[in-house]
């Protein structure tokens, strides 16, 4: 699931209504208020959404024609997770239920999205054979995923003894690794930037593993799901 971010909800006003929770902005449940009538009308929270319930409820409220409104001045300070263990388990938990929310809200039969240039809302994924055949595949083209595909290709080529192909794979993987780390490196310098990249990698890994397992439960191949 590609999820719109807190820091992007800085504009005061009505949220654009998105059709898919994968791209629709939503309010995290750490700081949100609902009209009770609206919540009761849509039947409360979905017990199957252990995480991502906020995303699910925003999408359902939109679908029921309620407006969503951002009020920046309503501020809540949040205690961040500390330590890699906590971080990993948190992101694993997020990833675990992404496929469920995705499957719940994306009723489209067969659709392929491939947006190479990331638009502002962060939609960039491939969705194959979804809801049509037994083989259901959702691939989010994140840098994290592409990096690992390149690494995998390099390993395979190396094992098969294809030196040229494995060198190409190595170059590709290196380029992708740099591009993965680049935003942090550019902003925070070499030391802090690489530390942050490592943290981001752990979070991505958590989501990836969680989403993969969650995807199998939904009978789909669900690969990677954070915005990089």
């Amino acid at each position: 699931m590609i999820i719109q971010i807190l820091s992007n909800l800085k504009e005061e006003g009505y949220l654009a209504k998105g059709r898919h929770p994968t791209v629709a902005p939503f309010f995290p449940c750490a700081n949100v208020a609902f009209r009770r009538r609206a919540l009761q009308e849509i039947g409360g929270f979905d017990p199957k959404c252990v995480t991502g319930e906020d995303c699910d409820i925003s999408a359902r409220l939109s679908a029921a024609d309620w407006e969503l409104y951002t009020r920046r001045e309503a501020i809540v300070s949040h205690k961040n997770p500390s330590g890699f263990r906590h971080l990993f388990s948190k992101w694993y938990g997020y990833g675990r239920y992404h496929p469920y929310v995705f499957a719940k809200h994306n009723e489209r039969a067969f659709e392929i999205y491939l947006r190479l240039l990331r638009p502002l809302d962060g939609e960039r994924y491939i969705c194959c054979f979804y809801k049509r055949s037994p083989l259901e595949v959702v691939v989010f083209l994140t840098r994290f995923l592409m990096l690992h595909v390149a690494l995998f290709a390099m390993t395979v080529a190396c094992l098969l003894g294809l030196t040229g192909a494995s060198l190409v794979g190595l170059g590709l993987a290196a380029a992708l690794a740099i591009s993965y780390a680049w935003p942090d490196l550019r902003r925070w310098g070499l030391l802090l930037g690489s530390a942050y990249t490592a943290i981001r990698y752990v979070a991505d890994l958590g989501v990836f593993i969680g989403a993969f397992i969650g995807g199998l439960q939904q009978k789909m191949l669900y690969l990677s799901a954070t915005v990089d």
Partner: protein
Amino acid sequence: MAQGKDQAVSRDKALVQAAEEYPELRDRLKKIRSLRDYPFSSNPVSTEAILDTYLCLARQALAAKPGGPRFRRWLRIPALSLESLKIFLPGDALGKIHKAVAALAEVQRAVFVPRLSFDAVAVAGMDLPALAGATIDAFDLVLIGPRLPAVDKLRRFNAALDCYRPMVNPFFGDTELAVALRPTQGWTIKAPDQDPEFFACLRSAKPLDGRLEISGAVEVERPFLLVDHLEERARTLLALFRQPEAFRLPSRSFLSLFWEAGRAAWLVAQTGQPPIRVPVSSEQVLQALAALTPGAEPILSKIYHEYCCEVQRQSSEAVRYTQWIERYALRLEELLFPSGIGSPELPSQGRTELTISVMLITRNRAGLLRTALKSLSEQERPPDQVVVVDNASSDDTPAVVRAFADRLNLTLVREETIGIPFARNTALKHCIGDVVAVMDDDCVAAPQWLKELEIPFLKDPHIGAVGGSIIPLEGQRDLVARFYASRMSSPPGGERKSSP
């Protein structure tokens, strides 16, 4: 000349129609159209030809016969009070306008006339921004003199009055030109016989200050080309309060719309006993509505007070009355056009706030929960209820919660099924407020949190959820926490961080 058969006719079309109706003016009209076709041409365009032609058209229209007697209504317009002008004109504004008028030697009279436009709704349709505040508490300042002042003087005058637009809108011309110019301001060319009250107001003006005058009470007979024109107008305006778009208007426009709808409703309510009294300012509408719905006066007066604050750009609590206004408009609609469904209950006297329940889910985090509850007990707008769901904790969570029982209206529930959605649904069952605010147990709410969250709900009944900003808690030293913080404070449109 479009005589109101087709209210929404464009000016171009009206010119073509006029040319058919008055063949003797065909050449002049053709010239006007050619001038209008090149609005951005660099050649100076003489306005005289246009004014001259409109004047001719107005005279022709005056000579033409208006509709039959059964389409005419007697209107009584009360005198405009100086107070209604002062609502939106700051203290020194009248003096400034007076000075600006004095600088125009050619002007003999400058008359404040209420902007009564009975066609505004029909013409503007559902275009809310155009509608809101279109005619109530708005004035035309009609400048009358033997000839038009020089262009640069007019420009200076316009600049001086710019800050009072759109509430005060000046027109220029000699007595007849004033008649002629009036139609050019709207979307349609209106015949003067469609706006008789405008000309009647000009005649009955009382002196105010120097050359400034203000329109007095008048009685006019007005043709209504559609027999049920008034009813249609009231229906349209009252129905707007069922449209989500209306609630997106700024408070001031929303209130103006309310006064406008109230006036329309009042006009319909008294059609049985001519003459129809037409309120021209919001204060007069307030009195009319108080007479129409006894018992509503106290809240109407409060709304009027907030409206005045809003117009004068003082801090206003007008947004608190949105819900009341919505229900009141529906009630007026039911009163005038009974549908049999029954009018909605008005919120009880003076109750203009929503009740808020705060929902807190916690599991084995007694320490964090204490700070969260403490922040809730320090809210500027205290919560009406705090529902804490203890999701099968094994620590001293219940004791921590109970310690706050004297400061918060607490409901402590225990949910044995572990899982956020179960706990949230259990909490929802115990919430009694109109609004359910959701916060995590590892969060600390800013003192204005609930106050700020409440405002959008008051403003628009169609809002189902309001989200606020989440910032990192201060003083977190851990590297992972610092990473989070760095991502949360990234500039909008820049980097992003995902978080459910």
